[in-house]
């Protein structure tokens, strides 16, 4: 159980769902251990949030456990999407913890947002990687193909293939490089629109989150990521944090768990 996720399902405002998919990780694997690591390293956090004056245990967070992952990614995403849609139908906010970034496609299909906001080192705009359109390197492209999604805003991106940068130049994609994230303003782009927030932990500089499969230097500061989460959370009806693996001493998982809690506190505070 995610620490503090003590609510019963029927009373929940937020539902944590583990999605330990580890099928297309392209360098170092281990995202299958992500949900477990994130739950473990969230144990040290205090229940009380001084900024908002709220207790995590009073915000109606339920942990549904993991949706066991297998190697048929299409079938897995379909089942995961259904599990997350049940959360949406219960008027709660799904909080998916990965697992590789591919799982965001299931979250977006369940929530059907208009704006996809993503913290990520990578553009993830390939049409296919090694011939696989379901690869974690293609997830933002797949999400842009969803009917409800009008645009993607990718913060912290600093690498991609030439094909990806060409796709990123189109009107429905905004890329904010790491050095511009702190001063970036969403303006009114989130007003009266439904958002989905995805945090790929490799958006952080590898110094802060080495436990991830494709580290990319010159990344975001944790406080910059935190501020983005705080700003987007009130407008987001779905959230995930992905790409945490077990190849560090808990730094990546700790940051992931903290950002999930920041999302919950900020979303609840804005109600």
């Amino acid at each position, binding site marked *: 159980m995610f620490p503090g996720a003590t609510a019963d399902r029927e009373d929940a405002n937020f539902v944590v769902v583990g999605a330990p998919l580890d099928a297309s990780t392209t360098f170092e694997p281990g995202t299958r251990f992500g949900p477990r690591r994130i739950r473990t390293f969230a144990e040290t956090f205090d229940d009380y949030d001084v900024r908002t004056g709220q207790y995590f245990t009073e915000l109606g967070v339920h942990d549904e456990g993991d949706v*066991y992952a*297998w190697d048929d990614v299409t*079938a897995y995403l379909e*089942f995961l999407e*259904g*599990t997350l849609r049940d959360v949406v*139908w219960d008027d709660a906010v799904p909080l998916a913890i990965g697992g590789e970034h591919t799982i965001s496609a299931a979250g977006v299909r369940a929530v059907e947002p208009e704006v996809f906001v993503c913290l990520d080192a990578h553009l993830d705009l390939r049409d296919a990687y090694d011939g696989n359109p379901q690869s974690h390197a293609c997830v933002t492209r797949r999400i842009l193909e969803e009917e409800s999604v009008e645009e993607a805003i990718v913060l912290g991106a600093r690498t991609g293939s030439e094909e990806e940068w060409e796709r990123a130049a189109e009107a429905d994609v905004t890329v904010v490089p790491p050095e511009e994230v702190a001063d970036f303003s969403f303006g009114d782009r989130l007003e009266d629109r439904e958002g989905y927030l995805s945090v790929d932990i490799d958006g952080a500089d590898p110094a802060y989150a080495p436990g991830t499969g494709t580290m990319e230097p010159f990344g975001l500061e944790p406080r910059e990521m935190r501020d983005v989460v705080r700003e987007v959370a009130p407008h987001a009806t779905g959230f995930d944090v992905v790409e945490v693996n077990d190849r560090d001493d808990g730094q990546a998982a700790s940051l992931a768990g903290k950002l999930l809690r920041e999302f919950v506190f900020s979303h609840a505070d804005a109600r």
Partner: protein
Amino acid sequence: MAKQQKEVRDLQEGGYVVIDDAACKINAYSTAKPGKHGSAKARIEARGVFDDKKRSLSQPVDAKIWVPIIERKQGQVVSVSGDDMQVMDLETYETLTMRIPEDVDVEPDDNIEYLEMEGQRKIV
């Protein structure tokens, strides 16, 4: 409600199932693999046949579940009066009154197909 018992694994998209005491038509069926320590689960997404409400359930594939017995019948429109129509059942020649759905346009002598379960009817 007239119903029969099946296992969740026997259900399929396009078929019917009882969820929350309501007859529903299944529009999505997905299964999760069990791994070494779990049991295979199925998730069903369905819509109420007579109330159009979306419902879902998630259960092990070997769980028992009720399937409603819904009859598919043929009828002929005898007359139309406001939002209602008189329909003659082409099997029993019984005449019954049915509400005309908003998205359906009918005229006398039209042949229609409808679902019937315990006095509830819906044009298909």
